[in-house]
């Protein structure tokens, strides 16, 4: 298990601060179960064989929303259980994410806004070759100063 960080406060956020890297493997079962829970029973999310036979893909895929959710969790784990909240996250899906391969999650704090008490972050998921498969940005907002 990745240990949750202590609750992050706006005052302790530093531009350049790194999130991760964390290595993960999304299993085929996890990807399939996620798709089924979302009502997406298309072949590409069911098995390698279904993806190849029915859709001509090299292997089954991880649902895009699942990878987005994993990157969102990278941010919320970093925030901890304080006043900081994930206000926005947006991702670009640049390449297929196949389950069963080692992936690494990365993030950086890139900007802070003193007046809004918010911070912007880059986040991405890359494979073992360092190819960034899913990239995005997020904004976290903190409550009023105590």
């Amino acid at each position, binding site marked *: 298990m990745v240990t949750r960080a202590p609750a992050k406060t706006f005052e302790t956020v530093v531009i350049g601060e790194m999130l991760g890297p*964390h290595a993960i493997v999304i*299993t085929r079962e996890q990807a399939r179960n996620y798709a089924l829970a979302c009502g997406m029973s298309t072949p590409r999310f069911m098995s390698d064989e279904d993806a190849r036979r029915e859709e001509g893909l090299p292997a089954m895929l991880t649902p895009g929303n699942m990878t987005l959710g994993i990157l969102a969790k990278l941010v919320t784990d970093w925030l901890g259980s304080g006043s900081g909240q994930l206000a926005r996250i947006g991702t670009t899906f640049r390449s297929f994410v196949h389950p069963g391969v080692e992936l690494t999650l990365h993030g950086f704090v890139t*900007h802070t806004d003193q007046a809004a008490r918010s911070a912007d972050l880059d986040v991405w998921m890359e494979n073992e070759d360092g190819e960034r498969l899913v990239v995005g940005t997020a904004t976290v907002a903190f409550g009023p100063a105590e």
Partner: protein
Amino acid sequence: MGTILDLHSHSESSEDSRAPVEAYLNWIRLRRDERPVDGIVLTEHRKFDRDADYRELEDRFGLVVMRASEVETDYGHMLVFGVNGELLHRFDFANVHLNAQELIDAAAQSGAVVVPCHPGRPTIGLWEHYRHREPLRNVVAVEVLNGGSRKGEELQSRELAETHGYRMVGGSDSHLVSLIGLCATRFEADIRTMEELVRELRDGRYDAIDFRPGRRSPQRSHTASDV
């Protein structure tokens, strides 16, 4: 002295980037030790920000910020340096089917230069087009290092450059703040203006330079549910 420039980047002016120029420059300042670039060129997708003015940011951060474009042609994506009124009048940069040879020739005649980017990339790279069509004339350089490259693309780009005698440049193709400056071009000359950049790309001495770090050893966990 020389100059190191990231020749390929996208700010929030491009529809697929949310990176403010100020954040790019601040990041370069923070990471100067590992990415010692002297400036960046903003190559927004299918447009040219004629009226953008970054002089205050240049002064504040001590870095060069230039404006160029990344356009889409019948031979793939290309960077246009030295965009001018003549080019903007003749070509609709939003057109995703620009004639590459006409663009290269018109650029050369009007004081600009065109550099095909990520040429080893499937579909949108020069290499794939060269497999089926005549090579373009008057290409001076191609981008052999691109921060967004996938496995094998840069090898393909280098082979193409060597085969055709093109010179080589690098750029991060950054759409995220933290990726700016990871690939760049090192010029022997001092460059502060777009006119100087165009001149050096045509006739100067330069090479592509890679600042991407070796892969870190990440903390290991085992499944997605552990993250």
